[in-house]
């Protein structure tokens, strides 16, 4: 393999690795920040202590997840330049300002108020503390707004023109760039995904404690709130995802062809391939289980509508079908399992067995981490589906890479893998450890509130001494 090609593949692997790891944490902290704001708001409104208990309980987990999100995010803001310098040079005048706005409107807001949120409960009044919590939650949302606008512009670029040194520059107004065609759909779909991911994680933790026999008001409230989210938001998400898919069909039809596994064009009604083994060499899906004409019905709302296949696209312009075909099915499959959980919980609620139905709890427990899988699968679908372009139709990924030597990229990739697995695996274990303890009324009791960090008392100091 040519030297440049190896470096390209390593650079892509590195970006895929760092961004996938990073994405897990914001997906959690966007939802969790809002959940914390709701919990604190409910506590202030009702004065019921178990809301404060839950707030403190989830805030500990939030702190760990947020720290991992921050440090993995700093890496991202430099990866564009270290590994994709040609992309940075060419697209910088368009996407750079959007990312600068993300820093100015979101990152500073989150970071500025996070300290008060985590450590300031006794330093500021309740109202101010609630304001800080809301500011952090708002910051996570604004951050999603800008970075998804950037990503959407790379998927469906509009409002730009080329200058004489080959940079993409704004053509007229910034609104055309920010509100590019896929942005509203991507924003709604992704933010709902973050809320659902968090709801299922919270529900999974609640289910775990219910299964272990803890039916205190904290556990019941956490489980009930999560199940309401699953029941109400999962159907909305499936609807939003469908709209997003139609938008993709309009602007990035090749991506949809790959998602559907449509190697061939179907002049009179395309089948929906449920499962199968895509084979890009033979340009066919082996052992396909398909429902005739359903794909045309979903995508065109007409059983006999013609759908073009990958045979209409030059080979050099096709994305890798296998990955997208499967990541898309994983995402959709999990979406429907979430809907099932939501409906099941409604049944449990109606029959008064929400807190007693052990099979429901077992299912909710298994579904606990499913949101993270779905989010990554969706991300892979949209990003790999854009290939071989980094900016759809305008700049190829292979033309966007830095002038890198493969040993440098390879060594840094290995370093990233080692550091990320060490830090983030351990962090995840700490989160699981925190979540493994039931939230009790002690969570909010004043004498336990500013828990003395270990080592404060002389006895502990001695124990820890060298």
């Amino acid at each position: 393999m040519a030297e440049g090609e190896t470096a390209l593949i390593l650079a892509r692997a590195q970006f895929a690795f760092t961004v996938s790891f990073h994405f897990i944490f914001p997906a959690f902290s966007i939802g969790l920040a809002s959940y914390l704001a709701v919990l604190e708001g409910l506590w202030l409104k009702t004065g019921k202590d178990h809301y404060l208990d839950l707030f403190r309980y989830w805030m500990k987990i939030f702190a760990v997840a947020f720290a991992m999100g921050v440090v993995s995010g700093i890496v991202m803001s430099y990866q564009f330049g270290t590994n994709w310098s040609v992309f940075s040079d060419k697209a910088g005048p368009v996407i750079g300002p959007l990312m600068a706005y993300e820093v100015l409107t979101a990152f500073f807001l989150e970071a500025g108020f996070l300290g008060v949120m985590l450590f300031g409960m006794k330093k500021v009044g309740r109202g101010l503390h609630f304001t800080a919590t809301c500011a952090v939650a708002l910051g996570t949302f604004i951050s999603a707004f800008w970075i998804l606008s950037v990503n959407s512009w790379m998927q469906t670029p509009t409002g730009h023109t080329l200058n004489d040194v080959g940079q993409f520059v704004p053509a007229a107004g910034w609104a055309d760039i920010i509100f590019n065609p896929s942005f509203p759909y991507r924003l709604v779909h992704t933010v709902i995904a973050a809320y659902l991911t968090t709801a299922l994680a919270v529900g999974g933790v609640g289910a775990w404690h219910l299964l272990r026999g803890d039916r205190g008001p904290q556990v019941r409230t956490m489980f009930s709130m999560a199940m309401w989210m699953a029941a109400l938001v999962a159907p909305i998400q499936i609807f939003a995802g469908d709209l997003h898919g139609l938008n993709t069909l309009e602007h990035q039809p090749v991506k949809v062809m790959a998602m559907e596994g449509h190697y061939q064009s179907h002049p009179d009604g395309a089948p929906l391939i449920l499962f199968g083994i895509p084979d890009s060499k033979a340009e066919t899906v082996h052992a396909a289980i398909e429902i005739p004409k359903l794909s045309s019905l979903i995508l065109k709302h007409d059983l006999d509508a013609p759908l073009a296949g990958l045979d209409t696209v030059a080979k050099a312009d096709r994305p890798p079908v296998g990955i997208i075909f499967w990541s898309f099915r994983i995402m959709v499959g999990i979406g429907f399992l979430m809907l099932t959980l939501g409906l099941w919980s409604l049944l449990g609620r109606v029959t008064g067995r929400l807190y007693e139905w052990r099979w429901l709890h077992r299912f909710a427990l298994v579904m606990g981490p499913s949101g993270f899988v779905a989010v990554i699968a969706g991300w892979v679908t949209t990003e790999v589906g854009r290939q071989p372009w980094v900016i759809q139709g305008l700049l190829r990924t292979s033309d966007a890479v830095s002038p890198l030597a493969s040993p440098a990229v390879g060594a840094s990739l290995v370093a990233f893998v080692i550091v990320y697995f060490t830090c983030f695996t351990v962090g995840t274990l700490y989160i699981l450890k925190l979540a493994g303890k039931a939230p009790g009324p002690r969570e909010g009791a004043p004498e336990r509130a500013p828990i003395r960090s270990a080592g404060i008392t002389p006895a502990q100091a001695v124990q820890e001494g060298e």
Partner: protein
Amino acid sequence: MMDLTVIWAAIIAIAVAAYVLMDGFDLGIGILFPKFRVGRERDAAMNAIAPVWDGNETWLVMGGGGLLAAFPLAYSIVLPALYAPLIAMLLALVFRGVAFEFRWRDPNHRRFWDFAFFAGSLVATFAQGITLGALLQGIEVHDRAYSGGWWDWLSGFSLLTGVSLVIGYALLGAGWLIWKTEGPLQADARRFARPLVPALVVAIAAVSLSTPFLEMQYWQRWFVWPGLIVAVPMPLLIAFVAFMLWRSIGRAPDSHPFLWTLGLFALSMAGLAISIWPWVIPGRVSIWDAAAPHSSQVFMLIGAGVLIPVILAYTAWAYWVFRGKVGDDGYHAHGDH
């Protein structure tokens, strides 16, 4: 006419300066960390920065993101050129960033995370210093791209700037602790600050004296009229601030050692600005060569003009909330063990 490129160069410079001053003291505390006694001293040192480190580090994202937005060409040349030190810095920041939370979560492995906090802070600082030195000594550019090798950043000069920054941050950290703590930890911080003052003065002198020999541009800037207007009084100013800093250690008010250290940093950064101006990559790419188009500059300037004052206001408020000495009880309200 107002030149937006100059304004943006100033904004990026201010963001970098804000980063150096703010994250400098919390990285410095990380560098000094192994010297503190295990137990309450380390906990108090950590608590002195726990509520603010995240905000401090955001200025680094602002520097990187701002450079991409305002000077995309510079961003796309500098980052590949400084690949190794920058990746090392990022990985080190990951380690020390998670250590803030992890050391409280897992008392059994606290020693490991304390070490990660120290090593991460040290490596990140050293890498930042190397980055500065490598930028000053020049970067090979050909056809809008970096054209040098993978070890070009490594030189005696860049190692010198690396070590200098470690000394400087350590002194900032010690100053912060003198201000924010009391008792034995404060006494320790004073003890560490003493030798760091002459060390930093020597480091500043060494970097200042080698810089003019790197590029003719620097030589002319400093030693040809009118550069002499600055070049002559600069050592006197540094000597004066260093003397005041030395004197302030060990006497009230406790805030002064930190503030005088900021003064040394401010003088050093002013010197750097004089050396580099108006280049973003010395001798190769000027700020006007690298600037984003006018419409990008205007769009961002509207946001920056409104938002930076707001950011400074609520950042100041967050610092104000945690004003005063760090008590024994610790801010860290979520150590459940």
